[in-house]
């Protein structure tokens, strides 16, 4: 049973990288510092690295568990359940936000007359099917989608070469330091530190797999792809256009043309966007349904899957009134998300360290029994 639901390191890295650039690549820039956005991206990556080490450490201390089981083990039944509730709520909220990003994108950029709920229903149905079939299917899906995504991004960069104006890079670091720091924190919370939700599916990782490797390589690949996308957008569009466009990556592809026969390639990056976003929402849905199942004492997450998906879908429609609220909401979202991404994992990590040290000292003979996850073969 465990073997059916395991993912190897390569698949885990793919899931993590897609979590990072899945829905951010379409946004291509952060408002207020468009032509310095690459500096803020690098700053966000540096900021994220220590937290990735914290996330990895949590799994390393309790291999074969996910963050819900670890919370229960470390903090006991009551406090652990509070942690589970908090992360379930966060997963649901984030999934709803990303869903909203998608349906807004479709409505604004491609089909203004299609109602958002029509896209939403089809999208959520596909994602529910993906999650229903387990983590291994998600792993295989990510391993297939990653190369496709990377090939398409590379192709767009090569095709865009003729429209690139490298002087758009200058002046370097001319934006206000305050604005750049602001953007760096925005980029940190969305998308880098959201990889904390990967901890909800780490039950499928074996002890022999190194979580540090997964997180660090994921950070590098995810960050590199986002950097390439930022540069491509900047060189093609230029600062003012990049700042005013809602979806700079989409606008860049509309401009890219090779001769008269190769142009209007928007559908390639729209489909790319979907492929990445489906993975991200699937991980959020996993987290939300596993957490709900654990809270309510249901065995297996599949029974909680459908209701949680419906809640996520409905929430995505009511969370913002219009696209301006959605774009401004990023400023508020980061303060809501920061505790989940920074404070809570640190608390869990410290608790986990203390617990394992105590167990090592006191209960050495019984150690193997205590570390077993509470529900095995639950999928």
């Amino acid at each position, binding site marked *: 049973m465990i073997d059916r639901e395991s993912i190897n390191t390569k698949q885990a890295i793919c899931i993590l990288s897609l979590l990072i650039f899945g829905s951010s690549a379409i946004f291509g820039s952060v408002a207020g510092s468009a032509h310095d956005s690459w500096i803020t991206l690098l700053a966000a990556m540096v900021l994220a690295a220590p937290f990735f080490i914290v996330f990895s450490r949590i799994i390393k201390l309790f291999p074969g568990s996910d963050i819900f089981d670890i919370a229960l083990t470390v903090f006991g039944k009551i406090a652990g359940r509070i942690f589970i509730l908090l992360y379930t709520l966060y997963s649901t909220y984030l999934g709803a936000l990303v869903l909203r990003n998608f349906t807004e994108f479709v409505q*604004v*950029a*491609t*089909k*203004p*007359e*299609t*109602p958002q709920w*029509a896209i939403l229903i*089809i999208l959520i149905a596909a994602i529910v099917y993906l999650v229903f079939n387990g983590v291994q299917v998600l792993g295989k899906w990510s391993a297939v989608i990653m190369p496709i995504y990377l090939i398409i991004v590379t192709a767009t960069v090569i095709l865009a070469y003729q429209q690139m104006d490298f*002087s758009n890079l*200058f*002046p370097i670091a*001319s934006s206000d330091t305050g604005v750049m720091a602001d953007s760096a924190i925005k980029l940190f919370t969305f998308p880098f530190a959201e990889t904390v939700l990967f901890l909800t599916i780490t039950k499928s990782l074996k002890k022999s797999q190194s979580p540090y490797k997964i997180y660090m390589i994921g950070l590098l690949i995810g960050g590199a792809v986002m950097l390439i996308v930022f540069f491509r957008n900047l060189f093609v*569009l*230029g*600062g*003012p*256009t990049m700042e*005013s466009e809602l979806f700079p990556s989409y*606008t860049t592809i*509309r*401009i890219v*043309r090779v001769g008269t026969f190769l142009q209007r390639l928007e559908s390639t990056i729209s489909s790319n966007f979907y492929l990445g976003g489906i993975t991200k929402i699937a991980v959020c849905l996993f987290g939300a349904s596993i957490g709900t199942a654990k809270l309510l004492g249901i065995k297996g997450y599949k029974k909680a899957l459908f209701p949680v998906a419906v809640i996520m879908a409905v929430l995505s429609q009511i969370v913002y009134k219009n696209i301006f609220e959605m774009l401004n909401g990023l400023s508020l979202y980061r303060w809501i998300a920061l505790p989940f991404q920074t404070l809570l994992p640190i608390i869990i990590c410290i608790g986990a360290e203390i617990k394992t040290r105590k167990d090592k000292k006191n209960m050495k003979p019984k150690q193997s029994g205590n570390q077993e996850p509470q529900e095995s073969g639950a999928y």
Partner: protein
Amino acid sequence: MKKAFAILIVSFISVTMTGCWNYRGADKMETVKGVAIDMGPKNGTYLLTFETINLSDAAGREGKVMPELVESVGTTIYDAIRKANNKLSSKLYFSQMQTLIINQTLAKEQGISPLIEWFLHDNEARELINVVISGEKTAKELFNMKPISVDFVGQEICEIIDKDRYVLSYIKSNLIYEVYNCLNRDGIALTLPIFMIVQNGEKPTIQADGSAVFKKDKMIGNIPAEIVHFSLFVTDEIDKGILTTDLNNDGQDDVALEIMKTKTKSSISFDGKKIKIKINVQSSVMALEIPPGTDMLDVTSVKKISASAQNRLVQKMHESIKYVQTEYQKDVFGFGKMIYEKNHKLWHKLSKDWDVYFKNAEVEIKSNIFIRSSGMSK
């Protein structure tokens, strides 16, 4: 059983969930190739003329498509666009639109920012629209001309601009997103190509003729075509073109060189009082017209031709910069942008009085022309 169910689901999805919510067939769309904006009959209104594709003959004899002009008046651009539907059975469709022609009086009095707003926001209208100014009294009369090589004026204007850089380099064009960048960027003044009606033998047709120069987004004048051509040397936007010079100094140009490759490097410095610009043009050319009897195997002859062409180029580039400095004082060359990119703190100090600094800027131009060959004959 499971297989049958799976096939049923797949068929259901592919039939019902692919495609559009509000599909419109090509016969229900009035595809717009070009739009001309003029002043409307009443104050504060716009008269829009759409050059659309009339498909009624397309299914007929040879599938010929004809341009159809539709006019509409509105209080804003989008208002006029929607009001056009009072005359049409199909909705206007803008994804194929290639050209936007603006009336020069409108550009001078109102500025072009409000005119291009809708085209930037709407998701149908693409970023690759060419924005041009009409050199005639109105913008819409350009649509009445019969283009020489294609069927639609909007398409003809776009193709003239596109192929110009590989043939003549007399047009400095801006796509609509580049117009937006120019208007919102520091250190460069906007220019847009001007199109006029000229006689081509018996029939009149359209031709590009110089550029309109802008102060912020209001047009303040026009620059003759030849000045534009040499200003493109200054900004390194020449791909191909020709250089002529007068070798014998008899008042008649007798040498024509085809530019194969040219690169301009500029550097800018500020000595506390004046802007100093150094420009270096490296070109590689083919001599295709030379005075009869010139021996191209003789190194001194070739050197004489190069030197003459170099002098001519430097002189013309100086003239073009001087013309813009004295007539308009607007930095169309992007010297301010060069300062902004290298040293944005210095730019912030100079930007308020940049027009004055630009007017008094000293320019030093060097040119090196290398004659690669003389075509098929010596």
